[in-house]
């Protein structure tokens, strides 16, 4: 039954995505178990000047209300978080977020590499990283950092992606643990939740 090696007690899930990832994210959020325990931290490429609407669109079908956290806001069990527009979002030691307006990275702010890389530093081998469809290479380095710290890495099956540049970047930079379709990612998260300690 244990298809995935989930003996490790994972503490958080980070998800990155860009062009073509919205439908997949909505599907994941709408099919999450109601009692999903791990915080889900999302960084999705988005329009810089549009502050409103995105989190609401994601929340419509989501089992859990999606939140764009404030600077230094605590990361709570079961919380679902989205990086706000025009800020980089980092995970800080002490289990909270930190925002920044630094230079764009990979032409992006928020940049997926920032969220994934800082989460890898804080959660180390207790982190699951998931990278979905996208048209640039942002997130590839972040996935490598997660893998280097002993975390578990998943990319969306490139054939299922609207644009596969992003998962392929991760696959070229590190040994990704699982390449899964969205339905399989949902099944994985259900399994992960059962193993939560």
């Amino acid at each position, binding site marked *: 039954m244990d298809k995935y090696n989930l003996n490790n007690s994972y503490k958080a899930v980070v998800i990155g995505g860009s062009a073509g990832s919205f439908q997949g994210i909505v599907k994941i959020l709408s099919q999450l178990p109601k009692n999903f325990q791990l915080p889900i931290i999302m960084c999705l490429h988005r329009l810089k*000047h549009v502050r409103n609407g995105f989190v609401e669109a994601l929340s419509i079908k989501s089992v859990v209300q999606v939140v764009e956290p404030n600077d230094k806001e605590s990361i709570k069990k079961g919380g679902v978080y989205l990086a706000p527009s025009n800020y980089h979002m980092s995970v800080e030691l002490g289990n909270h977020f930190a925002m920044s307006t*630094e230079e764009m990275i990979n032409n992006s702010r928020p940049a997926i590499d920032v969220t994934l890389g800082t989460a890898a530093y804080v959660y180390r081998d207790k982190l699951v990283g998931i990278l979905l469809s996208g048209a640039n290479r942002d997130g590839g*380095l972040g996935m490598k950092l997660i893998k280097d710290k002993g975390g578990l890495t998943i990319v969306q099956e490139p054939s299922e992606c609207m644009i596969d540049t992003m998962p392929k970047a991760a696959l070229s930079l590190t040994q990704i643990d699982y390449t899964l379709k969205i339905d399989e990612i949902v099944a994985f998260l259900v399994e992960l939740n059962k193993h939560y300690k």
Partner: protein
Amino acid sequence: MIQDIDIADLKKITELIQVKYGYDFRNYAMSSFKRRMLRILELKSLTVESLLKKLNDQPTFIDEFLDELTVNVTEMFRDPGFWRIIRDEIIPGILLNHKQFKIWHAGCSSGEEVLSMTIVLKEMGILQDVQLYATDLDTTILDKAKQASYPIKNMELNEKNYIRYEGKGSLKDYYKEENGRAVFDKSLLQNVTFRKHDLVKGEVFNKFDLILCRNVMIYFNQTLQNEVLKKIHESMFKYGYLAIGSKESLIWCEVASKFLVVNNEEKVYKKIKD
């Protein structure tokens, strides 16, 4: 390219700067501070050891170092909705009680925000009645702010923001294009005093009716945010206004009870207690 830096090494650097130059970076937020340090090491092709040596042996290097360490990415009319609130609610609120008033841009960086403010005031016809102070830790960036000249490539975003702000004319009314730069009309800055000021160690130097400190304290940890907010509170007249960044919050800090939320979306607060 991919490198990491130990917390122990970061500590060595902050301690040297503290002892030798009197700047205190010990309570900066770790994630961004680490990124800034890695960036400096890469830009200047330095190792931690050679950086420490350079900071120790070359006192002139500190200005360059501070300029790279501090985040100087900003836009004119960032968050246009915020600027509409400033024009339509906050400034009219101040004008109910005072014809003349003072504004402080704390952490002004390259000056886009204070310049935006002067345009707002000019379009309201009250620029001559307002004293503005723009301060930053970084003297290199203050010199740039005084020039009010920006690469023309930045103007596309600035123009878009200004249009969303719904200003009276076009941003082009305020600058001339010279050698690939947008050079703004210097008379806009006639009532602006630029000065070096360190929010962390600096003293309270004046009292203000409106303080803008947007996306500055995000680089501090909560301990330091708390301390800086006390000084900001002290630098405000009762019933004065404070604006912070759209993703910042006052909720958890000590002075929170001395402020009233005026606009939660754009993060504008009013001081109600001394």
